[in-house]
């Protein structure tokens, strides 16, 4: 079935559900998503699995206004037959009527997206990619990883996937629109072995375009290099030192910061930055941008989960917090306008999500930052969930490379890095020059001036 036929069909279902909501004197919105995907994993010389899927689903939000507020409920189903859709709308309405009225609930008052730029979220020709071609990609990555070094004797495999999706969002205010997008990925996870010890690591590439994926052989080699450099890892004595987060771990830190500026965390007072709007929350080297309209961006979309236009905004400007990320609801709770950051899945109502969020790169390469560090830790891997957004307390398991005299000395593991997130952000004193996009959030390498490294 062609993309246009799919979107026509989804649009018809959306309109049917919306008409039924309107007929019941309610408002609301619907999200329809349809996707096809394939995923393959190769391990050694063998194909481990080939997976193919077709999925579609409908999410409904019913909003029932009465004098002092609006009652709401969300439902979802994968049964898109007319009768099932009607029944689901009725169930949603019944469920909404059982909940309590909330003065802040409801659709956006106005401002729905009018310009819908083509953001290069899919290359139509990529739809013709075959499973065999992706098996070949995975095989090439796997071979490169296995052949990178005699100490690579095993692996968890190399995996390739392609997903093509189509969504239609519509609401009873008259906005009905959709767009298509794609995601392609390639991942390799080899094991290095020496002296009876084993280490694993991975490398990956993700893009909306097949031709922008990193070369399979390069993915395999980099994965192997990362596993190899962990061999011989040991612990270190407990100490306070500068800690460098590489591009893989720094994006995790930015993801945690994104949680702290979400309107929901703020109005619920579950953010240690809740009272910091307009204040310095990070060192003056730090600039954070959220922009939903980067062509080909993994977080790009022409409109957000409520039909509002996405846009570019500076979230942190030279360390100063400029804005929260808001959808309509959390905006109303805080007396502000939505920032076009409503994120919506089929199975839930709107929430807040970053679009493409990144820290502006600085001028030093990671190697230069390492050379600039007398003694410290380069973190390449974080484990566990030791972050409390309410207090900012941060304590996570880590592995990485120890730095002595500005040089990598040896790999380390079985250590933790701990501090308070607020101090960590204020303590950023070096920012790397390279951005690595593996998802919606990207960060260059970051150095935090001091954290507690616990070990022996």
């Amino acid at each position, binding site marked *: 079935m062609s993309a246009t036929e799919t979107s026509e069909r989804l649009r018809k279902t959306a309109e049917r559900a919306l008409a039924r909501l309107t007929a019941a004197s309610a408002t609301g919105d619907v999200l329809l998503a349809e996707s096809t995907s394939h995923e393959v994993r190769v391990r050694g010389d063998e194909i481990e699995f080939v997976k193919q899927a077709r999925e579609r689903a409908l999410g409904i939000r019913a909003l029932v206004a009465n004098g002092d507020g609006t009652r709401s409920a969300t439902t979802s189903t994968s049964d898109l037959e007319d009768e099932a859709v009607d029944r689901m709308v009725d169930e949603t309405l019944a469920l909404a009527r059982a909940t309590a009225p909330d003065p802040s609930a409801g659709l956006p008052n106005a401002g729905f997206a009018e310009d819908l730029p083509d953001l290069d979220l899919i290359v139509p020709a990529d739809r013709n990619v075959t499973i065999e071609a992706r098996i070949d990609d995975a095989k090439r990555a796997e071979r490169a990883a296995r052949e990178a070094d005699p100490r690579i004797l095993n692996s968890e495999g190399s995996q390739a996937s392609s997903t093509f999706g189509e969504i239609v969002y519509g609401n009873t205010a008259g906005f009905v629109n959709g767009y298509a997008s794609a995601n392609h990925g390639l991942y390799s996870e080899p094991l290095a072995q020496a002296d009876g010890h084993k280490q*694993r690591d991975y490398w990956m590439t993700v893009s909306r375009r097949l031709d922008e994926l990193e070369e399979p052989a390069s993915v395999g080699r980099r994965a192997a290099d990362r596993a190899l450099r962990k061999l011989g890892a040991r612990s270190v004595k407990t100490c306070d030192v500068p800690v460098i987060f590489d591009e893989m771990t720094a994006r995790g830190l930015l993801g945690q910061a994104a949680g702290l500026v979400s309107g929901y965390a703020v109005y619920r007072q579950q953010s240690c930055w809740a009272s910091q709007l307009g204040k310095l929350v990070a060192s003056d080297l730090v600039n954070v941008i959220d922009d939903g309209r980067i062509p080909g961006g993994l977080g790009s979309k022409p409109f957000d989960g409520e039909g509002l236009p996405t846009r570019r905004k500076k979230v942190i400007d030279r360390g100063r917090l400029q804005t929260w990320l808001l959808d309509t609801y959390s905006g109303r709770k805080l007396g502000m306008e939505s920032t076009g950051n409503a994120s919506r899945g089929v199975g839930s109502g709107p929430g807040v999500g970053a679009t493409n969020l990144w820290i502006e790169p600085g001028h030093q390469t990671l190697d230069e930052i390492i050379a600039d560090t007398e003694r410290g830790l380069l973190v390449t891997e974080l484990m566990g969930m030791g972050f409390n957004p*309410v207090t900012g307390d941060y304590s*996570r*398991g880590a592995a990485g490379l120890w730095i002595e005299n500005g040089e990598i000395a040896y790999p380390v593991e079985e*250590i933790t890095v*701990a501090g308070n997130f607020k101090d960590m952000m204020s303590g950023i004193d070096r920012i790397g020059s390279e951005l690595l996009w593996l998802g919606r959030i990207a960060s260059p390498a970051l150095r935090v001036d001091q954290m507690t490294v616990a070990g*022996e």
Partner: protein
Amino acid sequence: MSEEKSEATEFFHDRFGLDENQLAESLGTALERQIEYADLFFEYSTQDSVSLEEGIVKSGSRHIEQGVGVRAQNGERQGYAHSDEISIESVQLAAATARAISEQSRDPGSLAIRTAAGGQDLYPVESIPTDVAVSRKIDLLGEIDSYARSLDPRVKEVMASVLCEHRNLLVVSSDGSIVGDVRPLVRLNVQVLVGDGNKMEVGYDGMGGRYELERLLTPDAWKPRVEEAVRVGTLNLNADECPAGTMDVVLGPGWPGILLHEAVGHGLEGDFNRKKTSAFSDRIGERVAAEGVTVIDDGTLIERRGSLNVDDEGTPTQRTTLIEDGILVGYMQDRLNARLMGMNPTGNGRRESYAHLPMPRMTNTFMLAGEDDPEEILKGVSSGLYAVSFGGGQVDITSGKFVFTANEAYKIVDGRIGAPVKGASLIGNGPDVMQRISRIGSDLELDIGIGTCGKDGQGVPVGVGMPTIRIDGITVGGTQG
């Protein structure tokens, strides 16, 4: 064909018109090539939730998930296709895709399938949780809100939710069996935000299992959960910074069993051991834990969150000893890995939904009780950390490194419980830490039904348990050196 029909078989027959002959035919399609094993997995599940914040239930939700997955296996290869349409046509199409992993054709012969006789019934419920009137769940949340606020003036905000799930599934496999299961699951979450001056903290608690929702609705059940959330939140308001470094740690009973889940559980799943990527590969018969340490995975415990009548491949669950008195004796297996390793399946083949491939996964994993008095265990530690509750954990099964994060912990000073300290992560190496367990309490407890385990992007409900134990030396990730 057996006369006996299970509840699940009837459900799929009545709702989607699936009959045994057609199913046999579809499996035949998957088997037209050189395939060792094939199965069909049908699922229809309903999940609902209501949640409260700011004193009101602002929204409710209900989700219906349905679909079918078709799998073909040949050697280590698996072909898998799934569709959210449950019909013979979609199954045929998926079967043709799944078998593409094998190029050699063969005559499938005729396949006879039969409904397996009823086995264990670990979660008999009289009322289906997702059928209970939403008003009762809303009333419960309102009571929880008032009760939490009445307990302590420092309670600033309450968030609570009730989640119910009802899952029907049917597995039709090329060994000729049709096995179904109907699984209820309920869960209560309570979270309180507490504040004192400009200090803020959160406390969480909850409970759940495979039983009737009515059980959660009784004050005797939910009140203690609210009290716990408030107690832990207010305790942490005045917690000291946690010490950093290697120290002796005593873990309390119950939920800290997450240590076992991370330190050894994942490393004993069959797939990692077949591929020899686990720190425990090829170590059956070897000492991997201190004397006295016996670790069990048991999917047959009545009403527990991690329990299953049959796993997601239709294999009845069982009690599997993984470590006996410190010696590694068994792995957890699904069908594929059991076959490739020449072992028996252990009822650990689980998947998140029809859209996922099964893998060996834990059910309820716990350590058997020892003989030590828990108080004596504490008295024996001159300086260290006493951790009684944890957030999440994670493991790298290859290096054996695992992390878990305390959310209620105290210093131990001269054998006594001292000041509370802020949550910190503990990191260790599974095989190493298990050998450093020097005391095992007599107080085995299982957790209260809140665990979800993630592996390869798939989440499944699990249980953990442990008696009080002492570990001689583990790295604690605080900030006070």
